[in-house]
């Protein structure tokens, strides 16, 4: 039996929680049920949005069109009728992101190298050798929340955030690594840059990276 917990956040958001914390198995379960729910209810007029977080499936709905408790019954039924089959899930896809590391593209790599006691090359090698899980997209359009950064190169945020970080910047903040799809203020340590456009409204879907898949950085 699948263990989960349904709660409401506000008057029109239902949250199906599958576990605590950040964990790949839990996130696999989240994406398994996202796929099922998209097939079953995405076209219902009362559904506004279905999206994943690290450990939950989130459903925004229109409470003028369906009563909250009715939606809960529908969701419970769909989950009980669909036993999880993770092996059949198409979640082994790996997207490659070419990165120019260091120098003008990665202004914080030198400082990280000095503080961590690794050469710049070693940091690049560790960062680009890992397979990163895309748990969810959020923060800004197309921004991937990645799991799997090697602890040896985790590094605290800048004490003074930059007012503008260019689009395509690849950074490290604490034990997270990520890519900025748009230029934005931010406190991440920038170690490189990709020329891939992560979000393009003229494409369908507009996002280059899909949640529930994997990503690898490839040094240029």
């Amino acid at each position, binding site marked *: 039996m699948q263990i989960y917990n349904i*709660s*409401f*956040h*506000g*008057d*029109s*958001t239902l*949250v199906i929680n599958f576990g605590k*914390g*950040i964990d790949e198995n839990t996130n696999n379960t989240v994406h398994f049920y*996202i796929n099922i729910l998209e097939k079953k209810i*995405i076209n219902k007029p009362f559904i*506004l*949005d*279905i*999206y*994943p*977080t*690290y*450990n*939950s499936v*989130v459903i*925004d709905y229109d*409470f*003028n069109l369906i*009563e*909250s*408790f009715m939606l809960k019954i529908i969701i419970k039924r769909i989950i009980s009728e669909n036993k999880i089959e993770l092996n059949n899930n198409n979640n082994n896809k790996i997207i490659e992101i070419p990165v120019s590391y260091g120098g003008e593209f990665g202004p914080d790599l030198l400082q990280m190298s000095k503080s961590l006691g690794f050469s710049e090359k070693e940091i690049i090698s560790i960062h680009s050798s890992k397979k990163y899980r895309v748990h*969810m*997209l*959020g*923060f*800004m*359009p*197309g*921004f991937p*929340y990645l799991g799997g950064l090697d602890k040896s190169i985790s590094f605290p945020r800048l004490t003074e955030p930059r007012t503008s970080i260019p689009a395509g910047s690849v950074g490290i903040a604490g034990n997270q690594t990520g890519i900025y*799809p*748009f*230029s*934005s203020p931010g406190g991440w340590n920038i170690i490189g840059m990709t020329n891939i456009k992560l*979000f393009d*409204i003229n494409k369908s*879907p*507009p*996002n280059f990276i899909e*949640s529930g898949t994997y990503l690898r950085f490839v040094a240029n």
Partner: protein
Amino acid sequence: MITIINTGTLSSFQDFGRFGKKKYGVSNSGCLDKFSFMLSNLLCKNDKNEASIEIISGGFKGVFLEDITASITGPDGFFTVNDNKKIRINSSINLKKNDTLFIPPNNNGNVFYLSVSGGFKLQEILGSYSYHQPSDITNDLKIISGLSYHFKNPDVHKEKFTNDEFFKKYLNNDGIIYINYDRDILESHQKFINKFESTDYCTSNQYSRQGIKLTGKKNNFFKNQNEISSEVSLGTLQLPPSGLPIILLNDSQTTGGYKKIGSIPKLELSKFSQLKPGSKIRFNGLSIKNSNLFFNKMVKDFELISLNNYCFYHLNVNGGLISVQISGNNSIISIANNEVFNVFKE
């Protein structure tokens, strides 16, 4: 076509918003005050989701280059045509070629809507005409001074106004904002709720389409927090370690990492977004069930809202100009002269 002379703080095209795109990290955007937005379209006989210009804080000025019926809705007050005709907000007006429309800032609220009969000619972006402030994916939907915007099917109708009983009942600031608490708060933090509901908060001037920060006595209940990023929605009330609440609005991020207390009911945000900086508020908990009942009734009441025709007179009295709006049953909707912004109604 309308040519923009002044946009004010921020003017942008908005409709109900962009849905089904949160999985890509794109928030809903959409109008801050849904009822004023729908009213502006009702007055112009448009579809209720027709894109309108949302004007934050007033100070908007534009010249119309063709005849059209336009409507201005939002907090009670006046807008002007050609600097001398004063017309009450929540009215439509027939504008002629070269007429200049001005919407001044107003003490009763922040957000105004300008609709035109037949709508604006715009390019849809990801299924909506709503501008999204934090990214550059919808830049064409931001209103820019000096630019002109085309009309889709310009039309002229009878001028109409609405009596504002609905707006008085539901949207005037009574100092109380409802909140739907999250389950963990309801089940384990009754002490927090008691303290939170007895605290006077004030809306700050840190107001954007992404959210509003509140000021007041700091609440240290969740001083040490280590939340992982999770879902947030339109209306989410976050309590960062600083102890002062933030309420997320239409252009917020799709995920957030601060402690969540609950969420302001979506339709309560029409009232909330109109609160001027410095407005005093207290929070009142509402169960999801009662919240759905209350706001379902509000939507039904809005469906019953009545629109009335009026006549507009522009009188020269003792050398001064006076604007008068008179309804079909001969009652005066508004009188205004050039000196004073005063509203009389019977």
